[in-house]
């Protein structure tokens, strides 16, 4: 089943939440808005899939959101889209790769990559991240990936086969229930790798 069909299925079964976005069925199609904006009637209306990219790019203070799964999606908008294909494109902009990664996981195609393997693969300026200690890893992940202020994805990987991430609460490693579309992290992102480099080089205070 391709991504559009899978999304249509999910919506048909009543799926209405992904990350900070609430989806609603309307007479003229589908409406997306920030879940915090439920009940507001003063939202700015957008109608194009392309609007999703600009809405996703900046937070409420107009600061750049390099990490689209950070819990700082801007408020104050609603996006009306005519069909599931448009919703798919918009969600790909709000939460890049998150539709595809979840479906790939359901097909059994996702093999989580442990942090040590991710760091071992690095070359050039990021090769130095291989020196990150286990303790530094735990502290860095606790700071960068935390649900409150860091990232909304569910971590699927470990630091190494014998060492799980134990510096964040259990909810960080379990997918949300209630029919919510999960945001999954099957491998540490480059933002974390770049932060690891700063830690190893002593450019940021650990923890």
């Amino acid at each position, binding site marked *: 089943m391709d991504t559009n069909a899978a999304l249509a299925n999910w919506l048909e079964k009543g799926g209405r939440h992904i990350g900070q976005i609430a989806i609603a069925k309307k007479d003229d199609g589908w409406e997306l808005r920030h879940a915090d904006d439920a009940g507001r009637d003063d939202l700015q209306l957008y109608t194009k899939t392309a609007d999703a990219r600009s809405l996703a790019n900046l937070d409420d203070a*107009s600061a750049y959101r*390099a990490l689209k799964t950070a819990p700082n999606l801007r408020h104050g908008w609603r996006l009306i889209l005519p069909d599931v294909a448009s919703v798919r494109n918009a969600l790909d902009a709000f939460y*890049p790769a998150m539709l*595809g990664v979840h479906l790939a996981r359901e097909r059994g195609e996702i093999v989580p990559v442990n942090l040590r393997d991710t760091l071992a693969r690095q070359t*050039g300026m990021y090769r130095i991240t291989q020196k990150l200690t286990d303790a530094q890893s735990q502290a860095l992940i606790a700071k960068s990936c935390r649900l409150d202020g860091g990232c909304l994805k569910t971590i699927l990987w470990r630091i190494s086969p014998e060492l799980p991430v134990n510096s964040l609460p259990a909810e960080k490693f379990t997918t949300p229930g209630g029919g919510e579309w999960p945001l999954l992290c099957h491998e540490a992102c480059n933002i974390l790798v770049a932060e690891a480099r700063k830690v190893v080089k002593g450019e940021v205070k650990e923890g």
Partner: protein
Amino acid sequence: MFSKPDSALVIVGHGSTLNPDSSGPTWEHADAITQLGAFGEVHCAFWKEEPSLRQVLHCVNKREIYVVPNFISEGYFTQTVIPRELGLNGPLTEIAGRTVKYCAPVGNHSRMSDLLLKRAASIAPGVSPKETSLFIVGHGTGLNDNSAVAAKREVERIRSLGLYGEVIAAYMEEDPLIAKWDELSTQPNVVVVPFFIADGLHSYEDIPVLLGIASTSPGAASATGAGVFTQNPYRLRGRTLFYANSIGTEEGFAEVILDQVAAFDAAAA
């Protein structure tokens, strides 16, 4: 008309964790190619943004996937980072029942010279090319960075046409430095075209300071209304200077991306 309804296209850009405009042109070229209906699916992937190179193949439904790097030159990213992150072992890689075809980067394309000339002419309308020094600015230095080689190649091609009074390659971080543009050039008019993919950190925030047309980094283009490109010409150091957007924002890049796919097929035939 180019048509591959059973194939997917993945355009790979660098992206940025600092500048919100870095990935913009890559998305715009993807949108243009989607509008053309040239591929069954069109995706973007980035080194520094999402979808990442580690995620993108999971998002593709088609079995045949063309990957085109939206990079100015062959080098560290096209030869090391992209193949490593995507799991490629050459131009043609089978990954879990899918075929990934790795094409040449856009900056290698012979049409780059035409696009640079088009950009240079459009930024300085009515100005005599014969009385103009044209600068093509690359990054220079860095890991296995061939951007300087690519800029020199374009300068030689354009110089051989004899259209401009002089054509000069200059760099941000190695000699000849773009900061010395007035010493490097002799013509009364100076046109500067950044040989970069996006109006991101380098072309929008760094080079204007090096040129002397901004005293401090103006901040991201999308946040400041692209002011640095709207105040041409600049009159300083006894010259008239025109500063252009990065070449990668040129609309013609979408066609160049399609050309790189066609070139892959032609080479494989």
